[in-house]
């Protein structure tokens, strides 16, 4: 009799303990923002539209988690140099950094500089509930994954948008070009000598021509004609008939209807010309819009309009830059680093990033969030950006290889040759030979 009572008491006590202590035991394994309190993180990024918003949100992160962040923002070229020096030396103290997968992914991945984030996502003690990785747009997720490894959390897109002068289109009765042929015809029509002095005052079209940096814009034409960088076996096809056609058009547009000196134009020369009213059409990112409509910066602020980039027989392929935040594989504070990445890219973090406007944010839920409506002005641009990203966006505007820069240089040389009016087929063949050589060396290296 007594033993039965003991058993019942013990069971009750046991159940009681289980219901009170067990949740604590589980709680010890659940997510807690303050888990890594007191750590110091080093965060490096380059200037992208949300940079300022990121900087401003860091003190709140420190409040929330007790982690101090030493953040550095550099321009892109210097950023790459600095990160490279640090990672190559093997002694870097960087914890979190910005990555542009289209440019960096293959190299950084094969060099082992990315910390794979899949495990962190699946670990409930490390990832906040409600982070919702599936909420990111599909192309964003794909863009930040390589070889089935997640290497970064997407933080934004920048699609290429077609900008044009509304006043000129109206005055000369030009419709918004839909195809490359339309584009060329419009460019021809809008290259004008407006004051009759024999010198051209307005150029129909202007874009980058400075070799390597032009390949991203060029990719729109390449894919539009049905060309590709590499075929399904990974061999370069940069001198295919479609590629030659694209090269020819790109060079012709700049040579005949573009301003002189295009072979040295990076984006800023193009934009300056457009702002000065000397160019009828060009392409730029969605965030560039605000620079075009600022009266202190632009003479044509009241007549700028935009549309989706025209396409070729193979459709429209606006190139889309994807950015993500990654954790350095050699970081000594990976958990804390992951906390920072989450903070910047979770649902509320995304809203903060969008604060400066003009950049398509990577999460589907954020687009539909009523809070951001006042920020995403003008609505037309925002909608256009979304449409571009979802329907015509091409995040693969670089050949998927380690030696991306070298390949781009070789292709850039062909672009320069085309602009200068040289034999396009020869230039394409030369680029092709270079690509074959570069990729062969790369594959040989990788096999070792």
């Amino acid at each position, binding site marked *: 009799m007594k033993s039965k009572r003991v058993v019942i008491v013990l069971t009750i006590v046991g159940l009681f303990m289980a219901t009170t202590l067990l949740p604590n035991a589980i709680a010890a394994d659940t997510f807690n923002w303050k888990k890594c309190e007191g750590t110091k993180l*080093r965060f490096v990024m380059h*200037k*992208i*539209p949300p940079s300022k918003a990121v900087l401003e949100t860091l003190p709140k992160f420190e409040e929330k988690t007790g982690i101090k962040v*030493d*953040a*550095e*923002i*550099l*321009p*892109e070229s*210097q950023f790459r*140099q*600095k990160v490279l*020096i*640090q990672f*190559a*030396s*093997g*002694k870097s*103290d960087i914890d979190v950094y910005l990555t542009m997968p289209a440019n960096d992914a293959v190299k950084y991945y094969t060099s082992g500089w990315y910390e794979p984030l899949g495990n962190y996502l699946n670990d409930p003690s490390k990832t906040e509930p409600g982070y919702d990785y599936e909420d990111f747009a599909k192309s964003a997720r794909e863009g930040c994954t390589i070889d089935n490894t997640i290497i970064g959390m997407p933080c934004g897109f*920048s699609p290429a948008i077609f900008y044009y002068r509304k006043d000129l289109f109206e005055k000369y009765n030009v419709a918004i070009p839909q195809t490359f042929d339309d584009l060329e015809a419009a460019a021809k029509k809008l290259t004008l000598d407006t004051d009759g002095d024999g010198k051209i005052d307005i150029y129909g079209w202007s874009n980058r021509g400075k070799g390597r940096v032009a390949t991203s814009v060029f990719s729109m034409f390449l894919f539009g004609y049905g060309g590709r960088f590499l075929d399904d076996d990974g061999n370069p096809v940069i001198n295919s008939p479609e590629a030659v056609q694209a090269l020819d058009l790109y060079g012709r547009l700049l040579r005949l209807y573009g301003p002189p000196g295009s072979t040295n134009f990076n984006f*800023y020369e193009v*934009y*300056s010309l457009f*702002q*000065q009213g*000397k160019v009828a059409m060009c392409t*730029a*990112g969605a*965030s*560039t819009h*605000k*620079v075009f409509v600022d*009266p*202190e*910066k*632009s*003479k044509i602020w009241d007549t700028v309009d935009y549309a989706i980039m025209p396409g070729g027989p193979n459709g429209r392929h606006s190139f889309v830059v994807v950015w993500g935040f990654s954790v350095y594989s050699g970081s000594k504070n990976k958990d804390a680093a992951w906390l920072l990445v989450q903070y910047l890219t979770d649902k509320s973090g995304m809203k903060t990033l969008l604060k400066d406007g003009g950049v398509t944010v990577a999460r589907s839920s954020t687009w539909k969030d009523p809070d951001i409506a006042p920020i995403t002005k003008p609505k037309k641009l925002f909608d256009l950006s979304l449409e571009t990203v979802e329907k015509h966006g091409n995040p693969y505007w670089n050949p998927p290889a380690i030696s991306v820069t070298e390949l781009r240089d070789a292709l850039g040389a062909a672009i320069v040759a085309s602009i200068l009016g040289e034999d396009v087929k020869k230039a394409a063949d030369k680029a092709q030979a270079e690509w074959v050589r570069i990729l062969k060396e790369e594959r040989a290296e990788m096999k070792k």
Partner: protein
Amino acid sequence: MVILRKERLSTNLSRVFRSAFWYAVIAFFTLPFVFVIYWMFSNGFKNVVDITSYPPKLFSFTPTLKNYEHALFSVPFFKYLLNSCIVSIFATLGGVGLGIPAAYSIARFRQMRIAFAVLCARVIPFVSILIPWFMLFRTLGLTDTYIGLILSHLLVTTPISTWLMIGFFEDIPRELEEAAWIDGSSKIKAFWVIVLPLTKPGLVTTSILAFIFSWNNFIFSLALGGNNTNTLPVSVFNFMYFEEIDWGGLSAAASLITIPVLVFALLIQEYFVKGLTMGGMKG
């Protein structure tokens, strides 16, 4: 009497013409250099739309202070300024401090091999220095520290300091020191008290040039510096955005960066020489 006055008049006239001529020549040579500097400074006061407009607005623009405001307050400008000053001043002191004794020795004892060795410090291209230096400095815990940056800048300031001073020491006749030695002074004392003061004008030029080389150096600061020790040239790059280059802010920042150098140059000249003297020191 009349003849004398006429002569005086014509000599005066020809003197005026001659100085006018030389002023014109000086202006002719100086103008190209000044123009670009003026362009940079004036751009800092223009709205961006005026900077890139054509025909260029050399004088006819509405000035604005926004760019300077932006340059000074959108980045921790004063912190960068302090960092640049600390690094460059100490690098110059170090360069001159290490270079002067060596230069004296080289000049007096014709130590060509040592002079050559100093020169060889400049042969290595920076591309090859960055990664090994980063490894080295990181291991020693010197990244993102003033000491680290100053040490790295020594590589730029010491060769020029040494080599310029060699020439200035050579120009001082040995007899002066020898006289002092005969009188019982130590060689060091003679060097410090007699020889060195005579090279003051040379010291001025050397310090200014060493300072400038260190001031402009950006790549070492990029590789070895960090948030605490970033120097001014970095601030210039802050005006290169994703969407545009803020020409106004860039020009304002670039203009601001030149001012401390000017101040340094003027101060150094005042400190060392009360007005640079003309002509020779001997005789």
